[in-house]
Structures are given as C-alpha cells and as structure tokens.
C-alpha cells in the first residue's frame, strides 16, 4: 500500500484545469435572468476542485491502493459473506440494454428487464420456499423493515391491532430491533441457552397475544443451526405471530433446507452477500423479501408479473399493499448480478456452495479451537464465533489481535459481536476460499496468540505495516470534522 500522506482532491485543485468535455451549446442562448428570478440564481460557486483527468485518475488510484477488498485478500468478516464477486457479473450488468434504460419507459420497450426480474423472483421463491417475492427493498435492513410492515399490515387487516411486540434473540443483528422500531413495534429480547440457541422456555414466556413477529436468522449469528426451529415456529404461530427469517446467513443452507419449509412466513435475502452483489465499500445492496401466500396481498407495489399473453408487466392494482418502500423497482443493477450468479451456479451449484461454505468454516474452527476459547462445542454452519477471553487475561484485547492481522495482509473478522460472547471474533471464511488460504490464515492467527503469550506489546501496538496507525476515534467524535474547509488566507 501507498505510504504517502494522501492529499485531498480539494488540495490538488488548480484554477483553470478540468476533467470533462461537453459539446458547445448548439441552441440559441436565452439570458439566464429571463428564465430565473435572480433570487434563485446561484451567486457563489461550490468549492469543487479543478483537476485534469490524469490527476483525477491518479488521485483515485492512490486511494484504491489504500483500500482492501476481497480481490486483495482473505476477508473473513463474519455475518457479511465476503465471497468472490464474479467479473462476468460486472460485464453483464454494464450491458447497454440493462444500464441505459429508464424506469418510466413503456412496458413494451423494457420487456427484457422485466423478464429478468421475473425470472429472478421465481428463482428466489424456489431457493427460499416462499410463494411470492418483491425485489423492491434496497438492502437487508430495508428488507427487514419491509417484511415487518407486511406483517403489521396483515395483523391490521385482521383487526388484530394489539400486536405491538417483535421478539428478537439476544444474538440478533442490531438492525433487527432497529427495524422493528422503525416499523412501529417494541422490540423484546429472548435469551439464548447455554448451547447458543434460542431458549424455548424464555420464548414461551415472551410469546403472547401481543406478539406480531419473531425475527430469527438460521443458522443464528453464532453460526449455529437452530435445531428446534419447527418448535419455535409452532410457539410463535400458536401465539398468533409470524416468524421472520433474516437472510443474512442464507449462505449456509441453500439446497439444505428452506425458510419456507422450516416454518418461516417472511424472509429477506441479502443479494450482496449470498448472491455475490458485490459489497461496493458499503453498498449498494439489494434485499428482496419473500412471503407465504397469505401475506402476498400486502407486498409493496408494484409487483412484476407475467401476463396471459406471455409478456411481462407491473401489477399496481394491489389494494392491501403496504405501498412503496423505494422509488422505482429496487436496485436493478444488483439484481442483474444476483441473477447472473444464480444462472452460473444452478440448483446443484448453490447446494455445493453451502456445503463448501460449511466445510470451510468447520475446518477453520477446528484449526483454531486449541488456540482460542470456543464458547460452543457443536458443529458450526457457515461461520463461527471464538472468544478472546484467554488472551484478555494476558492483557491483549480482541481488537489488538484484529489489528495485528492487518500486518499479515488479512482483513480481520467481525469483532465484539455477537454481544453475548466475551471478546468475540466472528469468522466467516466463505466457500470461495481455498484450503491453502484457510491454513495460512490459521497459522498466522495461531502465531499471533503465541505473540500474545511471549511479546504482547507487538500485538497491543499493532498494526505496524499499514499506511496509517490506530486512529483517534475519541477526537473524531468529540470534535467532528466532517468536511474539508478551505483555509482562508
């Protein structure tokens, strides 16, 4: 990586340079003052930079060298499924007929796009075991909220207005309770038992006539399969609630089991995770939502449908719909990539993906289980959680070990999550990593635990080889500097 202190683009600016070219205006010019009242004509230019095209390219090339993606190396960030992002996806998503189309074009002129979305819906229904799918939500959290709004609309349509509560496990992603709140519910927590699974007695205690839904990813965020999922679904259904599947961990179960068969009523998928999105430095994602038939009337509108004449179109005539959750039809470009991936793998291939993801995770867990405390003894699914509690006793935190991994060219695992594991390291290797990569990573992480025992300061002071050291986050929060301001001379 580049060791230079990187100038901001604003600091590279020199008056008179430019990096774009437009043809000269070819229509007769009207004075601006004839078109717009001067109160509304901008007086002061925005302080945007003036750079040549090469300078612009070098600026971003330099920034890219100070960034780390899956293409650079192993990225076992738990719960994020940082698998390989196929290059062909990028090629097809950039096809003219898929990129330069406007959402308000006449249906007849976008049949290919509608057909692609329809095919994707059908495939996702089969993968999840659901009866209908909307592709409108833009991300996982957006899908969660959409799903909960659907459940709320269902209960309201039944005159069942006392259901104010959404249950989430104590291992849940932070978005689950947040989505519940934004959908107008109170989030209530159910405990995990000593095996890291939902405590059924506690669930029976909290599930009642005020329960709208229970949100549960399976495998859960500890990477463990909720073996009692059918019983869980029965408890919630008996209370009149719906069971919500957070698809963040779908990579473990494709072709193995389906949310629809486990008793779930609603599911969202993260197409940027399981279906090779890609992650884009934080987005865009795509968070389709699938539902069982009785919830279908409440899906956001429009839905994409196949008409009797074989053509594709929008169904806007949906009186019970929760409405729109996003303008237009979702993150189409990401949906194209996911569809390309599903077509590349096929049904057998996706099953193999989950088998290999689980194999890789269990292998890596086994390789690391002597060096770390392992809070749960059973097999894991696509990811697992270690505890750095042993190392903490020697004065080295999980954060320190994560930073030390940077020196060896790895992106560290998710740390301090789930909250119920002390000094947690959450590791998700994914199926696209080779055994050699897993072995090398395990060797390095074990070597770090030896450093913790023999020379802890190396770990405590890490990283040593990155372009920048540990940053002062307290200062950043206390005195926020959120933009560049040109110094006045």
């Amino acid at each position, binding site marked *: 990586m580049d060791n230079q202190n*990187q100038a901001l*683009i604003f600091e590279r600016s020199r008056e008179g340079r430019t*990096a*774009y070219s437009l*043809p000269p205006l070819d229509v007769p010019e009207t004075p*601006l003052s004839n078109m*717009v009242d001067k109160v*509304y*004509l*901008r007086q002061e230019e925005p302080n*945007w*930079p003036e750079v040549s095209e090469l300078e612009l390219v070098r600026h*971003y090339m330099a920034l890219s060298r*100070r960034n*780390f993606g899956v*293409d*650079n190396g192993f990225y076992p960030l738990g719960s994020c499924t940082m698998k390989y*992002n196929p290059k062909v996806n*990028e090629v*097809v998503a950039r096809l003219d*007929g898929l990129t330069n*189309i406007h*959402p308000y*074009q*006449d249906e007849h002129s976008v049949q*290919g796009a509608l*057909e692609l979305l329809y095919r994707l819906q059908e495939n996702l229904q*089969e993968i999840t075991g659901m009866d209908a799918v909307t592709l409108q939500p*833009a991300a996982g959290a*957006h899908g969660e909220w959409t799903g909960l*709004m659907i459940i709320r609309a269902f209960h309201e349509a039944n005159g069942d207005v006392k259901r104010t509560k959404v249950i989430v496990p104590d291992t849940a992603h*932070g*978005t689950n309770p*947040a989505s519940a709140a*934004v959908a*107008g519910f109170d989030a209530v927590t159910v405990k995990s038992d000593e095996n890291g699974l939902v405590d059924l007695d506690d669930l029976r205690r909290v599930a009642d006539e005020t329960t709208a839904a229970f949100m549960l990813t399976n495998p859960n965020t500890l990477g463990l399969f909720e073996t009692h999922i059918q019983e869980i679904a029965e408890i919630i259904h008996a209370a009149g609630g719906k069971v919500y599947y957070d698809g963040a961990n779908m990579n473990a179960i494709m072709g193995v089991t389906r949310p629809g068969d486990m008793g779930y009523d609603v599911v969202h998928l993260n197409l*940027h995770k399981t279906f090779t999105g890609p992650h884009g430095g*934080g*987005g865009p*994602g795509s968070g389709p939502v699938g539902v069982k038939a009785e919830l279908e009337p409440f899906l956001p509108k429009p839905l994409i449908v196949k008409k009797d004449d074989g053509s594709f179109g929008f169904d806007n005539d949906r009186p019970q719909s929760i*409405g729109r959750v*996003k303008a237009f039809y979702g993150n*189409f470009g990401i949906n*194209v990539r996911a569809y*390309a991936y599903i*077509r*590349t*793998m096929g049904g*057998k291939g996706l099953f*193999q993906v989950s088998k290999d993801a*689980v*194999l890789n995770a269990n292998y890596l867990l*086994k390789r690391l289980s002597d060096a770390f405390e392992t809070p749960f003894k059973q097999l894991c699914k696509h990811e697992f959680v270690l505890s750095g509690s042993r190392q903490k006793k020697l004065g080295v935190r999980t954060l320190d070990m994560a930073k030390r991994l940077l020196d060896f060219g790895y*992106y*560290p695992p998710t740390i301090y999550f789930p909250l119920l594991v002390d000094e947690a390291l959450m590791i998700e290797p994914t*199926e696209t990593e080779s055994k050699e990569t897993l072995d090398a990573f395990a060797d390095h992480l074990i070597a770090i635990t030896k450093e913790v025992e023999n020379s802890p300061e190396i770990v405590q002071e890490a990283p040593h080889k990155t372009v920048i050291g540990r940053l*002062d986050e307290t200062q950043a*929060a206390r005195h926020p500097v*959120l933009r*560049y301001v040109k110094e006045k001379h």
Partner: protein
Amino acid sequence: MSEFRYLPVTEEDRREMLNVIGVQSDEDLFSDVPAKIRFKGDLKLEPKLSEPELVRFLAGLAKKNVSTRDYPSFLGAGIYDHYIPSVVDSVISRGEFYTAYTPYQAEVSQGELQAIFEFQTLICELTGMEAANSSMYDGSTSLAEAALLSSSVTRNKKIVVSETVHPEYRQVLATYAHGRRLDVVTVPAKNGAVDLQTLEAAVDDGTACVIVQYPNFFGQIGPLKEIEQIVHGTKKAQLIVASNPLSLGLLTPPGSFNADIVVGDCQPLGISESFGGPHCGYFAVSKKLIRKVPGRLVGETVDDQGQRGYVLTLQAREQHIRREKATSNICSNQALNALASSVAMNAFGKKGIRELAEQNIQKAHYAAEQFKEYGISVCSDQPYFNEFVVDCKRPVSEVNHLLLKEGIIGGYDLSKSFDQMNNKMLIAVTEMRSKNEIDQFVEALGGIIGG
C-alpha cells in the same frame, strides 16, 4: 476437474478437511438440521450456464430493451440521461473499492473513507449545508428518513408535504410515516407550484416539517424564500428540501434559504439510469442536526503518529449500538454509487457543474419555445429548470407509443400520478439532447397531436 469456477475445494481437500474436523462426509456437517425439514432433491432453478452462454443469454435479454443510447430520450421525472465521464466507470471498477465492505477497519480502508469524506464535502458545498452523510439508498428513502428525523427532533407528528414533490417519493414517505405512526398532510399544487395560502393554513406549531422539492416535480423553481418564512414562522417546524443536485450548479442552494435538511438523489451526477437503481441518496443538514443524521458519517482525525486519517464517527447514533432506540435502521448504504458520483463531481469541478446546468436549462427552454412555435401548448408558466409540461390533447400513453415507433422515447405521462393531469406530458431535456434531436422530437410530437 471442478464443475464450478468459483469453488476451489478439491475432492482431495475435502477428504483431508473432513478428516481434520472428524466427520465422515459433508452430510455429517448437516446432522443438526432435522430430517423433516431437509430439502430433498435439487432446487428447481433455471439450468446453469457456462460463461459464454450466460453472456449471450443476458445480451439477448438486454436487446429486448430499448435503451436511451438507441433512441433519444425525453424522459426525466427523477431519473435522467446525462453525460457520464469515462473516468467514473474506470474508478468504480477497481476491485479495491467494489469488493470491499463498510470501512470498519480504518487502517486498511483509508481509500474508501477519504473518498466518502470528499463526497460529504462535495455535497455540503453544493447544497450550502454544514454536514452530509455518506449516502442513503436513494432520494425517496432519504426524504422519508428526513421526515422521521424531523419528527424525532421536534417531537411533532405532523409532516406537511407539497404535492409538487415526486409522487413516488411521497408514496415512500407515506409507508415510512405509517410505520412510525406519523400524520402526513399533502398540500395540493396550484398551477404546478406550492400554493402558499394552503401551505400557510396547513402548518402550525404541531408541525414537524414541511417538505418541498426544488426544482419541483414539474421542473418549476421556487418559491423557496416565501416557503421558508412560513415554515420558520412556526415554533419548531423544519424545512426539508429535495433537490436535483445538478440544478444546484445554477440555482441558489437550499442552505441559503435556511433549509434544515436537504435531500435528493445523485443519479444525475455520474450514475446511469439502470432502470431505477442502484442510485444514491444524499442527506445534508444544518449545524444543529449534525449529531442526529441517520446512516454513516466519516470524520477526520489523526493516528498515534499525528498523521491525518479518516474514521467512521458519531456511531453512537447507529443501529448496531442503539439497537431498538436507533432513530433509523439504515445499515449498508450506496457507497459505490457515492464514489461514482464523487468522481463525476470532481471531473466537472466548480465550472463544469455550472456549464452542465446551464446547458440543461437552455436546451429545455429552447425545446419549449419550439413547441410553442408549433402551436403546442406549454403549461409551465413559472420559471423551470430542465423539465416542463406540455398538453398533448390526447392520452400520453398513446402519444408515447407512436413516438417510440419514430425512434423517440417521449416524456412522462402525468396522468399516471395526478388525477387532474390527463393528456399532460412532463418533458426533460438534458445536455445529451442535440438541437437536431430536439427539433425532430418537436416535429414528431407535433405530427402526432397536431399543431
């Protein structure tokens, strides 16, 4: 040889790994999945395709669409056909950017963090606001989140929105408002603009915010000055302005009219139409709201050696810390699109954004003049930016169908969203349309509807 090019585990690897784990077969790894819920057989998906087959198949689907490269397009209504400098795609194709995730580990994510810091700065400069976040899903969700923020800050439940705001943005707002049990009051449009008297009557001390669009959905500019006086004449109400960022290259920024929150979509700046997404919402606020902004923020700080660097900051507001107390559930954002937009904004620079905006307003006005000369009625009598309304005197859907036959993508059918606007077409003219294309469009539309 493996059947799947993304899967590196060989059969030999598999045997060794299963052996280390201490199980016999893959199946044993799933012994915790009860037999009753095991999926039997193969998923019935479409058959898998090799790489060349896949490209051919998708190219075939793509060809079934008419692209805005095939035909000149006069469609806008929130999404536009604009010039995208080649450097944009070159930058966002870098694996270091597009295969990374949220920059949790700042030491190996300085590139992304700095790029976002620059994005925040570009948006602040353009909108005239104090702070901007790292992006939202799109303009519509950004607008809805702004309303939620206002409600939470003012503890008021009444959201007042002008009918001149994008109809789909208002629909999304309605869904979010229902979630949070807020009341949305829509102020009807009068001649394509906010009716100030009705607005004044709708706003009171129980109002959380007033949401307007500038330029509005019909392309019209103003009257932000008068609106602001009404809004801030109440005890708490906040002014939320949704703006096409390109127009702000030419127009006085909402920050100069004391807007509290400015939102919109960066699509016109460096992002392709993509059938409606992914695009990139922006979210900018005044100083007093900095600690209330939803989504991620990047801040400048120093490392242990005093070197300048960037981190995700003010995260105490966020869902992963606040959980059920969070004001927003947004987690991932549109970072790659924010990057694309940043590259475009930097390519244009302070002079280019002005030239681009001026070409839009000039070409739109030229087109409107040509329609008038042809005898076609232009309904927009107030100042407008790059969109205006014409009366087609017959259903727009029919007109567009005929235009398509002549190789032109016509404008937006306003009857789809407004009861009183039968036969009205919203026409967008961007810098991409040549004089020749505009003249042909006027000729073709004139031919269809008669002068």
